[in-house]
C-alpha cells in the first residue's frame, strides 16, 4: 500500500539507506525517543529520563517492551545497540554524531546510566536518539550472524515478514507491541516503483495508498482528485558549491557574483513547479522555520536577482568579460539539472561561457568526492530539527564529500559550529548560529538557492496519517502505528 522510489539496501538498522529504508526501519525497530504528530519528539522506549549532570543521564526504560520473538527488551540491549553504533566495524552512519557517548552503564534490567564525554544540548541528544539509525537491536538475536536483507528482530509496531527482491517488502502487525491495541493495521506492504509516472498512476488507481514522494509536476493534478489528500512541507534545499581553491572560484567576489546572477524564482518555477521558495539569505532564514527557536530572519534579503551587481563584482575580481567554467550536476534528477541550466543561463547572460556537465548519479558523486569539479549543484536535506545540521554540510574538518565545497577550509566557521553544539542554552546557541550565517554569507563557499516543498500524497481512506513538517518529513512513516483504513 505504500509506494517506494528505490529498493532499500540491506536495511542495516544503524546505517542510513535513504528515506524509503528509514520508513521500514522506524516501523520494525524502536528507538529511545520517537517522532509523533506535530513534529514532537516523545518517549519511545524511555520511561524516565533524568539529567544527573551535563555529561550524565539516568534512564529508566518502559516496562513490558518485547521483541518480535517475545523476549523482553532490557538495558543490556540498549548497551549492546549503542555499543554497536560506536564500533567502527559496524559502519554506522551516525557514529560521528554519537561519538560523545562514552559508555552505557547498566544498573538493572530497566535502568542504565548514559555517560557522555562532553556536554551536548539536551534537546539535540534526545533528537539524535530518535533517529532510525539508533534503533535498539536484540543482543541475544544478534549473537548469530544475520542478513538484514531478509531478517530483522526489533520491538517496533510491525515485524519484518517478507522481502521480495525488486518488488516489495511486507511488514506484519507485532502482537507484542507495548502500546495496547496498536498498531491498527495487520499488514503493510511497501511496493517499489522506480518510475515517477508509475508511482503516481498506482496511487491514482488505488494500487498503493501512499506516495511519500509525489513529483512536483503532479501536485496540481493530484490535488484535484477527490479521493486523494496531499500533505506538504518545505524540507530540503538546493545549493551551489564551489571548488574554493582553484580560479575563478577561489575569489569570494566571483562566488558572490554567482549568487546575484541566478534567477532563483525561475528555479522554483521550473524545477518545483512553484512549490518551493527562493533562499535569500542563510538557510535558517527559511520561512518554514518561523516559530522555531533557531529561525534567523536577519540574513533574509541578502541575495537578490541582480545581474548588474554580479557584473560589478566580476569586474572587481578582474573578470570583466566573465570566464569559462563547467558546472557539475546530476542527470538522474530533473531538479538538479534544471537548476544547473538556470545557473548557466544566468551567468551566460552576463557574458560568461558556462557548460553543464550532466552525469549519472554515481559518477557525479565520485567526481564530487574527488573534488574534481569547478562548481556543482547539490541537494541537501536537514535531518535534525536543530541547526546542528550545518555540521553535515559545512564543517571542514571532515573528509571531502561530494556535497561539501571542494578544498573547503574555514577554521573560523568550524569553531563557531563546534561551540554552538556544546552549549545547552538556546539563546546563546542562536547567537552563535546567527554569527555563523553572517560569516558564511561573506565567504560564500556555497550559495543556497531554493527550498523545495516535499509533497506526500495518500488516499483519503488512510486515516491517522499526517505529514510531519520540516526535518520530520523523512520520518513520516513512523506514524504508521496510528494509521487505519476506512
Amino acid at each position: 500500500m505504500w509506494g517506494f522510489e528505490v529498493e532499500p539496501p540491506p536495511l542495516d538498522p544503524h546505517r542510513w539507506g535513504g528515506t524509503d529504508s528509514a520508513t521500514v526501519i522506524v516501523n520494525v525497530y524502536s528507538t529511545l525517543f520517537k517522532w509523533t504528530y506535530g513534529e514532537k519528539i516523545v518517549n519511545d522506549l524511555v520511561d524516565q529520563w533524568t539529567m544527573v549532570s551535563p555529561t550524565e543521564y539516568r534512564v529508566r526504560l518502559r516496562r513490558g517492551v518485547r521483541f518480535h520473538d517475545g523476549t523482553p527488551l532490557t538495558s543490556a540491549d540498549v548497551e549492546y545497540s549503542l555499543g554497536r553504533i560506536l564500533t567502527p566495524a559496524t559502519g554506522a552512519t551516525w557514529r560521528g554524531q554519537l561519538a560523545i557517548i562514552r559508555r552505557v552503564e547498566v544498573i538493572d534490567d530497566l535502568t542504565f546510566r548514559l555517560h557522555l564525554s562532553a556536554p551536548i544540548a539536551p534537546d539535540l541528544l534526545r533528537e539524535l536518539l530518535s533517529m532510525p539509525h539508533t534503533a535498539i537491536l536484540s543482543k541475544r538475536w544478534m549473537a548469530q550472524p544475520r542478513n538484514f536483507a531478509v531478517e530483522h528482530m526489533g520491538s517496533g509496531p510491525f515485524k519484518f515478514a517478507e522481502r521480495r527482491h525488486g518488488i516489495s517488502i511486507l511488514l506484519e502487525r507485532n502482537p507484542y507491541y507495548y502500546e495496547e491495541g496498536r498498531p491498527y493495521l495487520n499488514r503493510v506492504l511497501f511496493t517499489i516503483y522506480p518510475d515517477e509516472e508509475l508511482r503516481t498512476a498506482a496511487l491514482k488507481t488505488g494500487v498503493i495508498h501512499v506516495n511519500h514522494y509525489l513529483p512536483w509536476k503532479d501536485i496540481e493534478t493530484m490535488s484535484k482528485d477527490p479521493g486523494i489528500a496531499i500533505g506538504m512541507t518545505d524540507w530540503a534545499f538546493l545549493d551551489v558549491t564551489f571548488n574554493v581553491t582553484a580560479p575563478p572560484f577561489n575569489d569570494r567576489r566571483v562566488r558572490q557574483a554567482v549568487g546575484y546572477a541566478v534567477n532563483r524564482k525561475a528555479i522554483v518555477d521550473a524545477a518545483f513547479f512553484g512549490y518551493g521558495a527562493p533562499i535569500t539569505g542563510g538557510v535558517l532564514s527559511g520561512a518554514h522555520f518561523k516559530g522555531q527557536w533557531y529561525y534567523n530572519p536577519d540574513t533574509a534579503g541578502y541575495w537578490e536577482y541582480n545581474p548588474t551587481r554580479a557584473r560589478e563584482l566580476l569586474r572587481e575580481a578582474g573578470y570583466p568579460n566573465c570566464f569559462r567554467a563547467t558546472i557539475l550536476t546530476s542527470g538522474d534528477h530533473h531538479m538538479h539539472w534544471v537548476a544547473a541550466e538556470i545557473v548557466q543561463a544566468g551567468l551566460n547572460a552576463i557574458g560568461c561561457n558556462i557548460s553543464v556537465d550532466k552525469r549519472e548519479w554515481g559518477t557525479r558523486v565520485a567526481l564530487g568526492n574527488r573534488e574534481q569539479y569547478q562548481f556543482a549543484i547539490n541537494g541537501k536535506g536537514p535531518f535534525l530539527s536543530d541547526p546542528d545540521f550545518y555540521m553535515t554540510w559545512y564543517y571542514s574538518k571532515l573528509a571531502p564529500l561530494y556535497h561539501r565545497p571542494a578544498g573547503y577550509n574555514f577554521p573560523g566557521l568550524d569553531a563557531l559550529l563546534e561551540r554552538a553544539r556544546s552549549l545547552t542554552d538556546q539563546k546563546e546557541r542562536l547567537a552563535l548560529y546567527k554569527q555563523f550565517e553572517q560569516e558564511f554569507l561573506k565567504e560564500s563557499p556555497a550559495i543556497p538557492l531554493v527550498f523545495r516543498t516535499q509533497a506526500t500524497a495518500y488516499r483519503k481512506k488512510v486515516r491517522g496519517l499526517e505529514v510531519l513538517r520540516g526535518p520530520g518529513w523523512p520520518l513520516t512513516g513512523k506514524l504508521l502505528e496510528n494509521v487505519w483504513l476506512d
Partner: protein
Amino acid sequence: MVMALTGRRLRRRWRLVATGLVIAFFLLVAFLPEVFAPRSPTAFDTARRLEGPSRDFPFGTDDLGRDILSRIIHGARPSLIIAFGAVGIAVVGGVTLGMVGGYYRGLWEWLPMRLVDVMLCFPPIVLAILIVGFLGPGMANLVMVIGFLYVSRMARVVHGATLSIRDSDYVEAHRAVGAGGARILLRGILPNIMAPVIVQATLMLGTAILVESGLSFLGLGVPPPAPSWGDMIGRGRTFMLNSPTGVVFPSVTLMVVVLAFNLFGDALRDHLDPRLRGAR
C-alpha cells in the same frame, strides 16, 4: 509500352526526388537554423512553461518555457550529426568487419565475427551508460558510442549477406581471373550487398536518434543548452501528462525524417539494384 516504361521510371525517379527534397530541406534547416527559427532556442521564461500551441509558440513551450518549434529547428543539426556520424562509423566499421568475416575463412572469419559477438553481448543502453560514464557526456562521445554500438549490428547483416554470395558464380568469376582479396571484396562483393546495407543504414539513422533519446531519458543526453530531438523527446516524456506537445512535436519530426530516410533508401536501392528494375 515505351510510354508505360518511362512512366514507371519517372515515378521511381519521382520518389527518389521527392524524398530527396524532404531530406534536403532538413539539411538546409540544419545548416541555417537561424533563418528558420522564429525565436532563440535557449531563451526561457519560466512563467510560460509547458504551454500548448499558441500564436506566440506554434508548438508550445517546454519545461523551462522555451519555444519548442525553435528548439526543433535548432535541434536538426545536432540530431543529424548524431545520426549521420553514428551511421557513418557503423557502415565503415560494420561493412569492413562483416565482409572480411564473411569472405575469408579460418582466423579471418573467426576474429572479426567473435569481436562482433562480444560487442553485441552488451545491452546497448548499458554499454552506452558505461562509455558515456567514463568518456563524459558530449556530442562527439555520443556519436562514437552510438556508432560503436551499431558497428556490430551492421557487421552481422553484412556477414550474412556476404556468406550467401561468397560462393556464387559471380564472385567465383572474379576469383578465376586472378583478382586479389581486396579487389574481390570491393568489386565483387560490395556492390552485391549494398541492398541490405542501405536498408540497415537508413533504419539506423532513425534509431540512432532514438538511442540518444533513451540516454536522455536516463539523464545522459547531449549537454544543454544545445537542443537535440532525442533529448527533447526524453525530457518531454517526463512532462507528458502536463503538456504533451513537448514529446509529440519532436517525435513527429523524427518520424517524418525517419520515413523520408527509409523511403529514400528504398528508392535508392531500387535505383541501384539492376535486378529489381523489372520486378513485380
